[in-house]
């Protein structure tokens, strides 16, 4: 029989499986205090899931506060909705706003790669919808184990097909992401998914249930036993002889249902029949009802037996916990219900009134007349436990940082032949090779607004077709840097994403992040986490771009070995006219190639050290956010004023890889000379080519604009060096080549073959 509030009052001492549900003794005690009695099993289910690390951020909260605290009023000026809502909303002008957020779906993707990745995309898209926006693009930063490990071959094809299978079917262009291979992720691949949506300012919707008498409508897919995991413990107790029918081990996404849900929601928004809206994701109804209620001005009464079920054997505890996909919850005024239902019917979306807004200040859930939940909603949704967990600087870190890749410790190439061979090996290495095998499985054209996507530095989508107003997005993280220094690593991730966005000509506006770390119960991991958050918060303040929201994923480890700290940072920028965007490759022979920024001997954590020596040690490249900001200004101004035809930022693999990518982009070669650069920065050709010093970019400048361009750099005191010229036929017989004068020459054909063969060779056939 069902455990009711009445029963709970009369049987205070029954044993409850709070431990199996992951609650700590004091947490269980607090629930009893809050309620002044033992919780019913339904209440226990709600608290246990809402107080879990995933939903309550209990270990990360104390640190995440910095994002809010370090956001100045100036930074807030463009922020229409900040951290705390389903996703932040940024004003991009002309009455347009965009909302974007990045989230993780790591563990499910390891268990069932295709469905795990697919439902990851589905979840983040519903977050964006719940703000009132039309989703306009997705991105997918992915991290896998070693490329030659058998299990990598189990997860990669499934995860990529899952991201594509779901996103393509929603009609959302995929405009960027990352693919990284490293043994650190062997037993714990990272699947992060980003979605961006656009809306008019007055279309913004929020997740709150206000207005006594308003109705609570659940719409979309039926509720099944998906993702209820541990709670079956409770359920099974409520079944006498016959146990509950088997619960799904994994969730299956239905992208078609979600596509219809998107169009249906947009029509509901346009018709103004929605007072408040919330997506159902982790913690399903427990989360949606408690958050809507506590963000509202009153309480909520729910008739749980009204919820349409896919599996009639579900117990109330399970219905509250179910994470079935493709569901949304809306608050609707009674007068507008018919219009609401007419629209859901048009789209063939099932919608059911499951409750109403009350003035009691309590969340009350009834099951066939019995009250099974009666709680103050805030205590479930917001007043969960908060832990300030012990931290300690990793024991091995000093030794790791001392292990600098200096020339006496790691052999460096010096002759032209050696440099050429090194370049070809790096170009073909798993992390620097072409991503086309992945990105060709994603639709980048649908919606007809994609102005830039892979392989350029940032994805660019048009928001307003009449003016060309649009946004650029890039996600980045070099976790090797973060492993060497999590504070600097987080800032380097921010710097690279910021640089990528500026490189295409967009003014960086806002940040979202997905913090993937190991176990918070490990003090060394907790230290890494705190360092990364502080680094990111400080960095955002320096660059003047606010964090608008994000996601924390903890307990990422293989056995008890944590993954590298992986703070993935997404930066969003705005372009007044996306047709002005700058691509990463040059096309016109004779244009001057400039390197902006200074190069130092910085190879700690570099791609060269990794590929050539399997080495990780020393310090990451120095962070200089002031320089990043000025570089950004130059790149944005240059694109606006038409001073550059191509721009590509320098990151993994340094100048050498950037040169190759800019040549291969359109198949046009270049003649490069490094002498003056080496002279100016006091470095040798190897360092010039492979160092990963930050705040640098390559640009191709039309002859006619050279003076204006150099004047602009000089005025801002930014080092800039003419290092070559675009040359569409340096070779004999007009073969396109990359010619690094006095050192080596490589035909683009040879580079392309090396660059493009790696992923297909690993994953096809």
């Amino acid at each position, binding site marked *: 029989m069902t455990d009711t509030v009445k029963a709970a009052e009369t049987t205070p001492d029954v044993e409850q499986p709070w431990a199996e549900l992951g609650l700590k003794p004091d947490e269980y005690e607090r629930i009893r205090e809050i309620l002044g009695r033992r919780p019913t099993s339904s209440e226990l289910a709600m608290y246990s899931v809402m107080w879990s690390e995933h939903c309550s951020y209990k270990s990360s909260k104390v640190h995440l506060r910095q994002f809010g605290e370090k956001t100045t009023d100036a930074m807030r000026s463009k922020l229409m909705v900040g951290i705390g809502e389903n996703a932040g909303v940024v004003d991009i002008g002309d009455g347009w706003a965009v909302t974007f957020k990045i989230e993780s779906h790591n563990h499910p993707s390891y268990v069932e790669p295709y469905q795990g990745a697919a439902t990851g995309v589905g979840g983040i898209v519903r977050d964006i919808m719940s703000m009132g926006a039309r989703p306009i693009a997705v991105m997918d930063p992915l991290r896998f184990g070693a490329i030659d490990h058998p299990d990598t071959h189990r997860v990669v094809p499934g995860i990529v*097909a899952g991201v*594509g*299978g779901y996103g*393509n*079917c*929603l*009609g959302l262009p995929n405009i960027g992401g990352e693919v990284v291979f490293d043994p650190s992720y062997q037993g714990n691949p990272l699947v992060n998914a980003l979605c961006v949506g656009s809306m008019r300012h007055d279309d913004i919707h929020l997740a709150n249930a206000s207005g006594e008498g308003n109705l609570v409508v659940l719409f979309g897919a039926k509720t099944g036993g998906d993702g209820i995991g541990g709670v079956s413990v409770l359920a099974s107790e409520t079944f006498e002889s016959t146990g509950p029918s088997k619960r799904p081990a994994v969730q299956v996404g*239905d*992208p*078609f*249902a979600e*596509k*219809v849900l998107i169009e249906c929601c947009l029509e509901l928004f346009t018709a103004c029949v929605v007072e408040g809206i919330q997506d159902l994701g982790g913690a399903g109804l427990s989360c949606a009802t408690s958050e809507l209620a506590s963000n509202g001005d009153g309480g909520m009464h729910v008739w749980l037996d009204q919820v349409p079920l896919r599996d009639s054997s579900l117990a109330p505890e399970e219905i509250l916990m179910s994470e079935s996909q493709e569901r949304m919850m809306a608050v609707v005024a009674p007068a507008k219900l018919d219009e609401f239902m007419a629209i859901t019917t048009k*789209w*063939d979306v099932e919608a059911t009134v499951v409750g109403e807004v009350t003035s009691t200040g309590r969340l009350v859930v009834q099951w066939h007349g019995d009250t099974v939940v009666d709680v103050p909603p805030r205590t479930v949704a917001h007043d969960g436990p908060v832990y300030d967990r012990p931290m300690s600087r990793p024991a091995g870190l000093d030794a790791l940082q001392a292990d600098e890749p200096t020339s006496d410790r790691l052999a460096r190439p010096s002759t032209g032949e050696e440099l050429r061979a090194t370049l070809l090996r790096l170009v073909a290495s798993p992390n620097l090779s072409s991503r086309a095998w992945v*990105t*060709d*499985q*994603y*639709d*980048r*054209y*649908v*919606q*007809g*607004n*994609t*102005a830039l996507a892979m392989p350029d530095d940032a994805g660019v989508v*048009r928001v307003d*077709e009449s003016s060309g107003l649009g946004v650029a997005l890039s996600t980045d993280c070099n976790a090797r840097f973060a492993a060497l220094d999590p504070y600097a690593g987080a800032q380097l991730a921010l710097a690279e994403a910021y640089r990528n966005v500026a490189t295409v000509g967009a003014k960086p506006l806002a940040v979202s992040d997905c913090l993937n770390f190991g176990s918070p119960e490990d003090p060394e991991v907790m230290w890494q986490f705190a360092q990364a958050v502080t680094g990111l918060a400080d960095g955002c303040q320096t660059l003047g771009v606010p964090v608008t929201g994000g996601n924390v994923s903890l307990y990422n480890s293989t056995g008890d070995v944590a993954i590298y700290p992986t703070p993935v940072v997404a930066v969003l920028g705005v372009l007044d006219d*996306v*047709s002005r965007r700058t*691509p990463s490759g040059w*096309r016109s022979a004779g244009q001057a190639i400039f390197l902006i920024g200074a190069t130092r001997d910085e190879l700690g954590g570099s791609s060269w050290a990794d590929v050539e020596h399997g080495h990780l040690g020393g310090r990451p490249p120095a962070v200089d956010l002031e320089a990043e900001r000025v570089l950004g200004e130059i790149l944005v101004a240059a694109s606006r004023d038409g001073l550059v035809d191509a721009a590509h930022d320098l990151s993994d693999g340094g100048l050498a890889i950037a040169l190759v990518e800019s040549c291969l*982009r*359109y*198949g046009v070669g270049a003649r490069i000379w490094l002498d003056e650069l080496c002279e100016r920065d006091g470095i040798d050709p190897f360092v010039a080519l492979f160092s990963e010093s930050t705040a640098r970019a390559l640009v191709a400048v039309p002859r006619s604009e050279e003076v204006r361009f150099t004047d602009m750099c000089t005025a801002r005191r930014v080092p800039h060096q003419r290092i070559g010229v675009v040359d569409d036929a340096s070779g004999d017989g007009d073969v396109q080549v990359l010619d690094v004068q006095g050192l080596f020459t490589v035909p683009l054909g040879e580079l392309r073959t090396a660059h493009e063969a790696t992923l297909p060779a690993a994953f*096809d056939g």
Partner: protein
Amino acid sequence: MRIGVVTFPGSLDDRDALRAVRTAGGEAVALWHGDADLHGVDAVVLPGGFSYGDYLRCGAIARFAPVMGTVVDAANGGLPVLGICNGFQMLCEAHLLPGALVRNDHRKFGCRDQALAIERTDTPWTAQYERGERVVVPLKNGEGGFVADERTLDELEAEGRVVARYLDGNPNGSYRDIAGVSNPRGNVVGLMPHPEHATEAGFGPDPRTGTDGLDGLRFFTSVLASLTGTAA
């Protein structure tokens, strides 16, 4: 001239097709799968996407939508109908066009700028192309392999009903590199690649392809011209 674009549950490139019609100078009319009335349009586009999630078979469920009955009758009466990608799949499922489309031979979704040769130019949709002209338009699908039995394939070739063929290698295992076919009369054309995504410079095929990215536009200007032609 009014050109209708039908939206089915799960249609994705419908708004793109509507935009392409406007770009070509036509009046774009949004049609709904549940409404059997074509609202007097002069031609119909069945757009790309994943109607009904492409569950069961691509286009297999959409084919039974109320609007399809009218489209089939009108097509048999000579109304110009263009099926793009999922729309092509629907036309095959509805037996307005021969053959069928199956999973790509490499078993992956593929998105690329695809070179085609336009081979039939006496259809209302292709009249403004040169016979054998090379064009580049995006191709993006998981089930783009055109299949039919040998007899049907020979018939298509003999009657000159192959509208477009893949160039520079076969991207999906389509028999005889076929990218698009037509009915005998030529008013019904099915095409796997997406001409509507090559109608606005900067938002279609990459400059890398050596095209201006506008190669798809003439599918839409062609039909408008042929309609005004017949109207005159």
